[in-house]
């Protein structure tokens, strides 16, 4: 991994017409009035899976919104798949977007929603229905295809959001916190799906504030902090740093006490606390913890786990340490 620096990422590639890249930015900046969202970023994101990692407010979402054409650059240039993206709707034939927000047309069923969006992609009715079913099947929602999205659980909503992004088989996927709120089994399946997607030669840019999630998908990451790219490269060095800091995981479970009993016996758990149906666990070894949690969810020893999230502040301390160093 490139050494952390407070200046522009040392490893950032000079822009150019690189056909092996999916995103090329040149001195890209975005201001929100007086606030800087992204600060003079020049980088090249190559094909394959790239993870954007950073704490809350690092600039990940700003960069993704620029890449997906929802924001216009204040300064600098940006090309996606060798094309400008702002004001270029044709690019969405090749790009799929899974936004961060938990926002839907709640009265529509998952199938109706996907069909409507596929028709906007240029699919005819019959074709849209078939393709929507296939996408719902990929995210394990075929059984819930005719259920209203408003009645979906958080994890199901995350999955249907992913389904709309992949349904039209884009060559480039942009995913903003795609695993947030999913239960352990859905996370595992989604990670498998995305790995398979990348193995087919497609590219993915995925953002997260949880290293474990990114690491499960790729070892190629961009570290962001305060609107800049701190470093890019292999994940292992930052992983060691992160492992030294306690990591908080929030879980919503059917039987929180049973879950806590199962978890607390392990050496990787530092503390456990309750809040209604929520269990908060502080762990020093998130990798080990997440692996065990997935196993427990799979064999049912801890009862049903509905939702797993990781608060934004986990990475903050690590990034402050990186910036200072």
């Amino acid at each position, binding site marked *: 991994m490139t050494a952390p620096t407070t200046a522009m990422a040392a490893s950032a590639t000079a822009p150019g017409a690189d056909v092996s890249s999916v995103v090329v930015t040149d001195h890209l900046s975005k201001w*929100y009035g007086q606030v800087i969202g992204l600060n003079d970023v020049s980088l090249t994101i190559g094909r394959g899976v790239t993870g954007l990692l950073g704490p809350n407010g690092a600039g990940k979402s700003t960069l993704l*919104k620029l890449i*997906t*054409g*929802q*924001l*216009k650059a204040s300064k600098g240039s940006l090309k996606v798949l060798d094309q400008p993206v702002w*004001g270029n*709707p*044709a*690019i*969405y*034939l*090749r*790009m799929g*977007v899974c*936004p961060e*927000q938990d*926002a*839907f*047309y709640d*009265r*529509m069923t998952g199938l109706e929603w996907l069909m*409507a*969006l596929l*028709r*906007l*992609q*240029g*699919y005819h009715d019959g074709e849209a229905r078939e393709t929507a079913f296939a996408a719902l099947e990929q995210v394990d929602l075929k059984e819930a295809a005719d259920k209203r999205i408003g009645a979906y659980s958080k994890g199901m909503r995350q999955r249907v959001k992913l389904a*709309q992004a992949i349904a*039209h088989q884009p060559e480039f996927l942009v995913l903003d916190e795609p695993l947030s709120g999913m239960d352990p089994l859905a996370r595992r399946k989604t990670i498998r799906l995305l790995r398979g997607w990348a193995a087919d030669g497609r590219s993915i840019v995925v953002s997260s504030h949880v290293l474990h999630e990114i690491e499960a998908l790729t070892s190629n990451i961009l570290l962001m902090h305060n609107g800049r790219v701190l470093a890019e490269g292999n994940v292992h060095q930052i992983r060691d740093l992160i492992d030294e800091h306690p990591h908080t995981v929030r879980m919503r479970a059917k039987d929180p006490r049973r879950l806590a009993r199962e978890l607390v016996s392990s050496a990787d758990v530092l503390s456990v606390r309750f809040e209604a149906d929520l269990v908060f666990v502080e762990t020093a070894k998130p990798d080990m913890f997440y692996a065990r949690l997935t196993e427990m969810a799979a064999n049912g020893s801890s009862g049903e786990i509905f939702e797993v999230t990781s608060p934004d502040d986990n990475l903050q301390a690590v990034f402050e340490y990186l910036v200072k160093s």
Partner: protein
Amino acid sequence: MRRPPTFVNATARVFDVAVGQLLWSRRTMFMVLAVTAPILIAVILRASDAMGVSALRVNGQQVGGPVMFGGMIWLLYLRFIVPVLGTFYGTALIADEVEDRTITYLFTRPIPRGAIVVGKYLAYLVCTILVVLPSVTAVYLLITPIGGGGIGETFPMLLIDLGILALGLAVYGAVFAFVGARVPRPLVAGLVLVFGWEQIALLVPGYLRRFTVAYYLQALVPHAMPQDDAVSAIESLFSQAPPAQSSVLWLLGILVVALCLAAHTLQTREYVLEQ
């Protein structure tokens, strides 16, 4: 590679989605109430007439059904229901998607943003017309026979009224679609425009009234008003109205300009910033 939908196709597909959204929106109950109220008023007037109680008299003379109907068209529908529906629905076309943060799904499709505006606008128009025009027809059938008015002879006037109302819904909808795309709190801005600006500008002599939709709509109202001091004041407004043909042209011009501005706003605005 698959080709993106044409503008017309994209508009039709946005329309399909938007019709369902509009019908199930939070504002639907309001629209039902708004169009039911005149029917209730008409029922009361008809019942009064049937019981021999003359509901409305001017200078001691009973006001006939067709005149009453004309008054309701102008005062209730054109001056209240149509602008209010235009405000509530027009401002919501884009603003609701922004507020609910669902606009991202539309903006990340290979369709021009202008098609989103036009598709949603057409859905608004179809929904409101389908609700308002039957309400007007019901009021017409209830009120026209009062005082011996004949339905057959005044029927062409009903058709003209329905056309005026449809045009009113179309123009107000386009204006407020633009307001909804441009202004952060569009409903408040829309209500201020309808109940503030339009009311004041119509009362002020001079050119100010030319900058209202109501000024051109009132020129199209064909009904003779009953003679009375108060009503004469209303009539004076009509007498200052422009010719019907030029009013129609002005209204169509406002409609086209407002829709183009709404489409341009959607094309250039970064809505994510407002979320």
